[in-house]
């Protein structure tokens, strides 16, 4: 009997889990027959079994739900919000009871009649309905499966590993002995089968991430109705496979981020309407595989994170000092959210905002070799990205050796490998500390043999340098004697006595069956005395995607008129022009070059540098405006693959970096446009301003100001054909009596207005007038 009950409990659990997503999806599409059927099947199964096991309360509950759902199935009733809520409440109660049966406890006390009554048509809803679900993964139905204990699986896995080792041994023996050719053939076949088996058994450890996602719609639904918010959940990529243990490791961090998004990110419907958004917030969760990493994005369209506020809070909490607070970039400001003891929540709620959490999320993710990134725009939303390795246990590694000792280094931490006697590498000792200069960049350098206290018979200059970047940290160079092979290693935790050294991340077996220690790059740095902490925060950011994108940036390398080596991002340069020096002149406080029909603001030159027959110019385009940049000669095309050191002061040169091994100044194109370009040369469609009447003051004095602000001015005769975006009229002028009031600026001749209600502008109040013009143009499109 006990066995039967255990089976019943297991079956119910499995169905409950699969049902979590289905029921919310059903709510979104009540006419979806397939989902209705699977829910019906569940309550029906429970009912059938309960009668047999004598669980009267369970039976009553499931019976009531079955009746109501049967009515829907038969078309006697329409599935609506209250019904879904009532069914959900009943399924929850069934879940509680099953948990109690499983634990061998008594049934939780309580009366179920309220739940059953709520099923009746027109009954008071149990809980407000708030969530719709647009799950893209249509088929949530469980595939044909059997349950296996994890222990058994692990045993099979270890047996297969033994088999591989035995095969290797056999291979060696076969090579040494004389035998028939037929034996070779049979052995080859055996090898292939073993390899296939190893693959298959490795895959049993993989699970679809759907297992993690399936409970989310339900959780978000409950959370949002508790908070009075409306959230649309969009889940994608449920079929991505991930190591079973890994799924467990990211469950908590993911849940935490989602709770934060719903609680702090997404606004209440009223707030959302006020800011011009749809009242339903969107929470998109997606998973995808990228190389040997899984990327999980959690994106909301809520209020976003205010980086400045974070920086202020961090300053107040003493996490950063005033100087570094000022120097933070937006990305760095946002990354402060991961600092311990910082919360942007105004009030502590029951769901989140206790100032613990995001730091725990980060440390949990980093512990499994992953990275969390945050990107946010105030008012537009927040995106959190979890990057985690595919599996906890199989990692790609590089094997290295000191003398006869072999070690493995996780490949994810390796930036590059260089020879110590290579051309662009210099080794120095500064006060006993090793410094490696690799292509002009100085890195702390330590020798693995010294850290481990091993004798090395390899000259320092013959060693290989491995540039390591421990999880989110700074880089350093590690000198090893020899580098052997890339291998995929099955890593197991090492015994405490081994881990206590702080040098190792685990142990593993090489193909020949001998154990290998996996080195921990961060631990090596610490034991080796390399200080990585001071740049930790900045380096964490540098490790993010921005740095990688920057690495791939193509630049045009050129020599400026002042002779210096400069670089400009290639994408910005439209083309190269040649003009005569006389085409360049100082006008309106700025050097300007005439190129064809256009007059462009000119940078990169001073008046007296403009000698010679021809002046060569880049035409730099930001999409709507153009500026010209004078230069002497184009040197090369290159990609930015080095650290970009940003300038503290804003100016023409925004940063310096190494291009092809020599320093170059990087032109700050943003600064160019910000300081040189004026109004957009041509807006997509200029705004139209109607100046009614033929008042000479308006046409002679006002019109130039209005045109300078980017408006096209039309007269009365055109105003009938074209609807103006703005009307400017003198107060009391009859010509504009029928102008639309919300798009009209009234001007008055008297400096003093006629009381509070008078929103007209004094005709010589230039600042007020420009402000009104600006707000009218920015309000366009609303």
């Amino acid at each position, binding site marked *: 009997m006990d066995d039967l009950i255990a089976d019943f409990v297991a079956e119910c659990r499995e169905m409950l889990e699969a049902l979590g997503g289905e029921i919310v999806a059903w709510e979104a599409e009540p006419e979806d027959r397939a989902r209705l059927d699977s829910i019906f099947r569940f309550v029906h199964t429970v009912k059938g079994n309960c009668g047999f096991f004598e669980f009267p309360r369970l039976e009553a509950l499931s019976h009531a739900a079955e009746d109501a759902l049967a009515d829907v199935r038969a078309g006697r009733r329409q599935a609506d919000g209250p019904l879904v809520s009532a069914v959900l409440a009943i399924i929850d109660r069934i879940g509680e009871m099953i948990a109690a049966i499983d634990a061998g406890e008594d049934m939780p006390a309580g009366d179920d009649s309220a739940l059953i009554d709520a099923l009746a048509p027109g009954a008071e809803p149990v809980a407000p309905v708030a969530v719709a679900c647009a799950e893209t993964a249509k088929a949530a139905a469980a595939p044909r499966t059997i349950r296996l204990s994890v222990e058994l699986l692990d045993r099979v896995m*270890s047996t297969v*590993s*033994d088999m591989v*080792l035995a095969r290797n041994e056999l291979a060696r023996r076969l090579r040494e002995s004389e035998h028939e050719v037929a034996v070779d053939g049979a052995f080859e076949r055996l090898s292939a089968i073993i390899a296939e088996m190893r693959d298959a058994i490795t895959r049993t450890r993989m699970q679809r991430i759907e297992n993690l996602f399936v409970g989310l719609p339900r959780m978000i639904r409950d959370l949002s109705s508790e908070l009075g918010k409306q959230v649309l959940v969009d889940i994608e990529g449920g079929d991505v496979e991930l190591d079973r243990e890994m799924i467990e490791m990211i469950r908590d961090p993911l849940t935490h981020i989602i709770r934060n998004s719903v609680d702090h990110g997404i606004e209440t419907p009223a707030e959302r309407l006020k800011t011009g958004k749809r009242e339903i917030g969107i929470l998109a969760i997606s998973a995808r595989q990228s190389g040997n990493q899984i990327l999980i994005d959690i994106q909301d369209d809520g209020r976003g994170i205010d980086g400045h506020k974070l920086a202020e809070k961090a300053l107040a909490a003493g996490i950063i000092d005033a100087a570094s607070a000022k120097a933070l970039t937006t990305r760095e400001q946002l990354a402060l959210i991961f600092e311990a003891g910082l919360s942007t929540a105004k009030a502590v709620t029951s769901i989140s905002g206790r100032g613990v959490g995001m730091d725990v999320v980060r440390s949990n993710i980093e512990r499994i070799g992953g990275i969390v990134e945050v990107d946010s725009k105030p008012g537009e939303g927040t995106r959190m990205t979890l990057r985690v390795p595919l599996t906890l246990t199989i990692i790609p590694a590089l094997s290295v050796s000191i003398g006869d*000792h*072999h070690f493995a280094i996780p490949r994810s931490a390796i930036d590059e490998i260089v020879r110590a006697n290579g051309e662009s590498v210099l080794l120095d000792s500064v006060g006993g500390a090793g410094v490696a200069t690799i292509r002009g960049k100085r890195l702390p350098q330590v020798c693995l043999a010294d*850290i*481990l*206290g*091993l004798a090395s018979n390899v000259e320092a200059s013959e060693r290989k340098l491995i540039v390591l970047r421990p999880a989110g940290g700074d880089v350093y160079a590690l000198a090893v004697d020899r580098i052997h092979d890339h291998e995929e290693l099955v890593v*197991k*935790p*090492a*015994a*405490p*006595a*081994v881990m*206590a*050294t702080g*040098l*190792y991340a685990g*142990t*593993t*077996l090489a193909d020949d*069956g*001998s*154990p*290998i*220690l996996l080195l921990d790059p961060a631990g090596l740095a610490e*034991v080796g005395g390399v200080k990585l902490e001071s740049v930790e925060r900045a380096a964490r950011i540098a490790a993010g995607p921005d740095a990688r994108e920057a690495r791939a940036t193509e630049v045009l390398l050129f020599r400026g008129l002042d002779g210096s080596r400069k670089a400009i991002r290639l994408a910005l340069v439209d083309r190269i022009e040649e003009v005569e020096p006389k085409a360049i002149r100082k006008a309106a406080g700025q050097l300007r070059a005439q190129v064809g029909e256009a007059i462009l603001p000119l940078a990169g030159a001073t008046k007296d540098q403009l000698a010679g027959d021809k002046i060569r110019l880049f035409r730099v385009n930001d999409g709507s405006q153009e500026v010209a940049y004078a230069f002497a000669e184009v040197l090369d095309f290159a990609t930015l693959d080095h650290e970009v050191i940003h300038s503290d002061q804003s100016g023409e040169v925004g940063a310096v970096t190494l291009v092809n091994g020599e320093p170059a100044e990087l032109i700050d194109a943003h600064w160019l446009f910000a300081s040189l370009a004026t109004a957009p040369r041509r807006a997509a469609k200029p705004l139209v301003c109607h100046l009614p009447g033929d008042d000479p003051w308006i046409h002679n004095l006002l019109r130039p100001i209005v045109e300078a602000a980017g408006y096209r001015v039309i007269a009365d005769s055109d105003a009938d054909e074209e609807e103006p975006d703005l009307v400017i009229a003198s107060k009391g002028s009859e010509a504009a009596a029928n102008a639309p009031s919300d798009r009209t600026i009234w001007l008055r001749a008297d400096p003093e207005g006629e009381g509070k209600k008078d929103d007209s502008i004094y005709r010589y109040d230039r600042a007020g007038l420009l402000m009104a013009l600006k707000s009218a143009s920015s309000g366009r499109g609303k």
Partner: protein
Amino acid sequence: MTALLLVVEIAGQRVALPSSDAESVVELDTLIPVPRAAPHVAGLSALRSRVLTVIDARRSLDLGETECADGIREAVVVELDGHHYALIVDQVEDVVESLGEPTAIRGAMEAGWSRVARGMVETEMGPILLVDVAALVSGPDQSRVAA
């Protein structure tokens, strides 16, 4: 109560380990050293597809060092907290039945032995010191490692 004891010789002393702790007795041939680990960790070895952390019982007791250079050593495989260890002993002698509960030893023992002693048990071979495997594995500098 009678329990089976594995009688081994460590540093010339005949001692007993609870045989329920011992998984198997193996002969180690390869030994991969673990640089910078505590001195009683002699290295790593592989038993089928498992990695064994090899503990030199002599060093754990501060009674010198087992000479490992000559190759094959006898070792007792034990499992503690999910990790597998191999304890290098001088030699494995026999499995005997204990004839009673361990009793406290009143005499003064050498420092290393007193740390791992669980008491004295009577056997057919006479009184034998019963050794605590966990204490043997954790080594002499347990307090320092923990701190």
